[in-house]
């Protein structure tokens, strides 16, 4: 029983980290029809800058803020300079964001060196609680809480505010929104900023979770996030949450019970979903 609870918590925490990455991807894809292959680069930049700020200031909170800001700034730059010239051309989008991914992860090595950097949990989040034999690690609960809070915040933003209304309408029909006098360019930039900020936050939180950060983690997690987005249905926010948790849980259970298959499990899951339901579990367009 305690193994089950531990595995579930573990999976949920990983799932939330993937969610932070995948939600940005799916928002950007849903609204702008851009599959941002450089998203993992923003994630890794968030991790590096956040951990760097955290270790130099000593405050975990400032580190988180710094990571989010870094992600947002990088997001704006990416949207303006890299993605804007290739709107509407899928092949070029794939190619150009992939190139950016290369640059972003190499730049990390230039700024912070090629070696992996260790990250420690702040005092007030390290350690664990014990309830009758069940050990609950505080930091995992923290990640789950943050992920859930972000989910609620974005959900609120999308469902209850005017910006969210515009964004949701933009996903449905870009031209119509524009003809109603909304500056869709600005909405694009805003969504990109939010998505990038979320990715950076995910990266930052991953640092103390896995203990080390390294330059290639962007690509590794990006693949996971793509899988999540595809399983959940591209452009579906709810789908990406569900799929992220599903992938996180299946990953943690597989790693415990059938470790040999763990690496391939997500890929297989995605392949099966795509073959039978090309639009994903919650997707609407094929």
């Amino acid at each position, binding site marked *: 029983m305690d193994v089950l609870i531990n595995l579930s918590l573990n999976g949920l925490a990983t799932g939330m980290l993937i969610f932070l990455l995948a939600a940005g991807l799916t928002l950007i894809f849903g609204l702008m029809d851009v599959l941002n292959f450089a998203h993992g680069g923003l994630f890794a930049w968030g991790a590096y800058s956040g951990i760097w700020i955290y270790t130099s200031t000593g405050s975990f909170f400032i580190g988180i803020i710094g990571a989010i800001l870094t992600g947002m700034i990088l997001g704006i730059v990416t949207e303006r300079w890299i993605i804007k*010239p290739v709107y509407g051309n899928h092949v070029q989008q794939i190619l150009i964001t992939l*190139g950016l991914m290369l640059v972003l992860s190499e730049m990390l090595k230039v700024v912070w060196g090629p070696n992996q950097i260790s990250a420690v949990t702040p005092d007030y989040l390290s350690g664990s609680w014990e309830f009758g034999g069940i050990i609950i690690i505080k930091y995992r609960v923290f990640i789950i809480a943050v992920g859930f809070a972000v989910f609620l915040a974005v959900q609120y933003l999308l469902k209850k505010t005017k910006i969210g209304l515009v964004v949701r309408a933009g996903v449905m029909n870009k031209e119509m929104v524009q003809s109603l006098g909304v500056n869709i360019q600005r909405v694009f930039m805003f969504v990109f900023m939010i998505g990038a900020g979320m990715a950076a936050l995910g990266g930052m939180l991953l640092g103390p979770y896995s203990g080390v950060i390294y330059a290639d983690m962007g690509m590794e997690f990006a693949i996971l996030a793509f899988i999540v987005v595809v399983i959940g249905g591209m452009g579906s926010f709810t789908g990406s949450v569900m799929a992220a948790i599903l992938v996180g849980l299946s990953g943690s259970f597989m790693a415990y019970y059938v470790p040999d298959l763990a*690496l391939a499990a997500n890929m297989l899951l995605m*392949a099966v979903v795509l073959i039978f339901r090309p639009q994903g579990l919650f997707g609407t367009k094929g």
Partner: protein
Amino acid sequence: MFSNRMNILYLIVAGFLAVLPFVYDSRSMLILLSQVFIFAVLAMSYDILLGYTGIVSFGHAMFFGIGAYTVGVFMKRFEPETSYFLLAVLVTILLTAVVSYFVGLLTLRLKSHFYAMLTMAFAGLFLVLAEKWRTVTYGNDGFTFRVPDFLKDRTDFYLICLGSMVIVFILLKRFTNSPLGRVLQAIRENEQRTESLGYSVLHYKVIASVVSGVIAGIAGILYAVSLRFVNTSVFTMDITLDALLMTIIGGVGTLVGAIIGAGIIEFSHHWLTELAKVHWIFERWIIFFGIIYILAVMFFPMGIVGSLQKLKFRKKKKTSIPVESEAVSQGDS
């Protein structure tokens, strides 16, 4: 494009490359050029997908890797004799054909984004397989193997690589100029229209996938033989990315472009690594690479050969019918 003048030029270049090892005896140059030929084969096979059919595959490394591992396993398990080598080639062709057929059938129904991801996932599966199936692949570390005698000499191997490249070039040239190749290009230009003309688009895409997969497998064989070593790196994304870069920089949709791209990229790999001794920033040469690549996609989407062709095309148009050339250039931009 398929004019006599170009053919003569190709012949001269091929002849020059063929006599090169006998007049200019530099070991490192021979190795580098062999590497260029091998990757040119890979890039040409990728160009069949990206340039001629208009689909972005992120799983091209899986065919390359199948070739590399097949020859490696055969040479390791059995005696490194010519007959076993030929058997390995045959098995590679069969395996890559079967895998590309089934993967193509499963994935090519999907739209560009989804297709790219699913192929990435399939390539990932093969990477995991190569890591986990230790009894055959020796896991992450890979293994060395011996090669048959006729592949041992550097000069001979150079000529074999050159020959393979030329043969693949001629075959693919023939393929792309055939009616079938024309249908593929029609799919690239406008998929819906091609479908409405009565062509089964999926069927043609699968054919393109099989052709490109088999040739990528052959490139993989040559690559493994050139190193006499194989490890899981042949299945990684880097291989696919290299093929992609070569195709883009050389010129999408032209086979010569793929060869030129392979040359440029292999040589710049080589030089930039050398430059790392001069200044540390060149150790991170991938940055320059990435930046050039982004700029190429943005401003130079047709690559070197493509842009040259467009220039030539425009000039020809301008001299004959000036009014229409205006319309063409506007339509293009």
